[in-house]
């Protein structure tokens, strides 16, 4: 299926949940995160779509004034088509439904997004930090992140301005 066909298949079923794309972003589908669990189930169970493989799950910070984003790249092994789904997450209260039980791969990738951006995936069975230590402060990949000065008495080296 082409991108347009996939998009219309989702729109036909969940017309309220498909949001308009921001300017210049044409190769992805923006969805309302409130209906995400239902749409996710639809993506994997519909015979024509059958996205059985989650290729990649990326957390994003669009800049310190705007919201966070989660991007999913799906691929269907049977039909050989792919799609990119983007969900917007509120920066102040970053919560989003988890798809960990649909695509098991999302388990660790959601934990990574939580670790790096502080996005809480609701319904995830083990929402803990994965790469950083459990007691690390802050969300490293956010654009407004500032490194803590010390960690258990060890001085944390800071990234210098402008690599020479």
């Amino acid at each position: 299926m082409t991108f347009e066909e996939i998009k219309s298949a989702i729109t036909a079923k969940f017309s309220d949940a498909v949001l308009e794309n921001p300017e210049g972003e044409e190769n992805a589908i923006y969805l309302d995160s409130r209906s995400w669990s239902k749409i996710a189930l639809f993506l994997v169970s519909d015979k024509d779509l059958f996205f059985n493989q989650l290729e990649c799950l990326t957390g994003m910070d669009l800049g310190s004034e705007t919201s966070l984003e989660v991007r999913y790249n799906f691929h269907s092994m049977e039909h050989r088509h792919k799609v990119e789904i983007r969900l917007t997450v509120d920066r102040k209260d970053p919560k989003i439904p988890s798809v960990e039980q649909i695509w098991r791969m999302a388990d660790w990738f959601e934990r990574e997004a939580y670790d790096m951006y502080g996005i809480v995936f609701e319904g995830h069975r083990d929402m803990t930090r994965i790469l950083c230590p459990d007691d690390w402060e802050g969300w490293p990949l956010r654009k407004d992140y500032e490194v803590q000065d010390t960690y258990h008495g060890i001085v944390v080296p800071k990234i210098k301005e402008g690599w020479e």
Partner: protein
Amino acid sequence: MVVNMGPQHPSTHGVLRLKVRTDGEIVSDVYPVIGYLHRCFEKHAENLTYDQVIPFTDRCDYLASMNMNFGYVVAVEELMDIKVPERVEYIRIIMGELNRIASHLLALGVYGLDIGAFTPFLYMFRDRERILDMFELVCGARLLYNYMWVGGVSHDLPVDFIKNTFNFLDYFEPKVKEYNDILTYNKIFIERTADIGVLPPEVAISYGVSGPNLRASGVKWDVRRDEPYSIYDKFNFDIPVGEGKMGSVGDCWDRYWVRMREIEESCKILRQALKDIPESGDVHSMIPKKIRPPKGSVYRRTESPRGDLGYYIVSDGSPVPFRLKMRSPAFTALSVFGELSKGWMLSDIIAILGSLDIVLGEIDR
């Protein structure tokens, strides 16, 4: 009882800690704890220009640095819409496949070592060393190459490289039989690996397991053939899949066997590439003066020795990536490990972990 394994343990291939819950000798649950090598490569990338990121990709999977470079430059070139010269494409494929052989040799040798077979490890390292010597001739480094650049490669091939590589292949191809005799069909090795840690194809796909581990479960999926990048569509090669020759499809022996077969296929690709490579050509002609991709994003995956290596790059039009995400194949392979090792003996855990061929540098990034 909970047994702690690692972070320093000879069979964990790096710094990996496993919390193993056992019932007698039987393992009921494994919880991998990772992050000991975490240096936040993605944060570094957001503060570096596109060409400065390449040495960092080397250090993720330090056993297959050429393939890590390859995936990154292919993604950036797709974003910038650069077409590289044909000679460069051939050089990249030759380097990528040589590195795949080197990486698989290490994976198989170390796997034997995990199981308790020391000799095959030395045989395979002897031959891997010759490949590393060739890389040293090409770019001066044995492990961390920084060889593939956006739009080209750093150096042209040295004099006589093609002749020497043909000589190497003539020497190397008969050695595969030697490995098979000494390890693959060894009775003890088969007893330790066949029918152990069977990974069903649906579980593998759901967990995002890719590369040789996925193919061992019987799924005929290879990015080089199914989503060809560079000029992989020009070459003839088979995609080996697990057949359950010694036990069931998707067991440890199958994962080992698929890697062994892939070495042969890589030799096949190498022979074709070495025969067809254009005699001359400037390998620097398409390297841009300043890498400044247009606004937009790209997700490109390539086939690294460990599976689908994906780069998700978001550009805001500046010379620095706005966001760079690496989808690491070993990360997903390790995430299935907990599921895979339930119900096996404690000693089988070693065999299963080794068969997944993980590199912690790439998992922790």
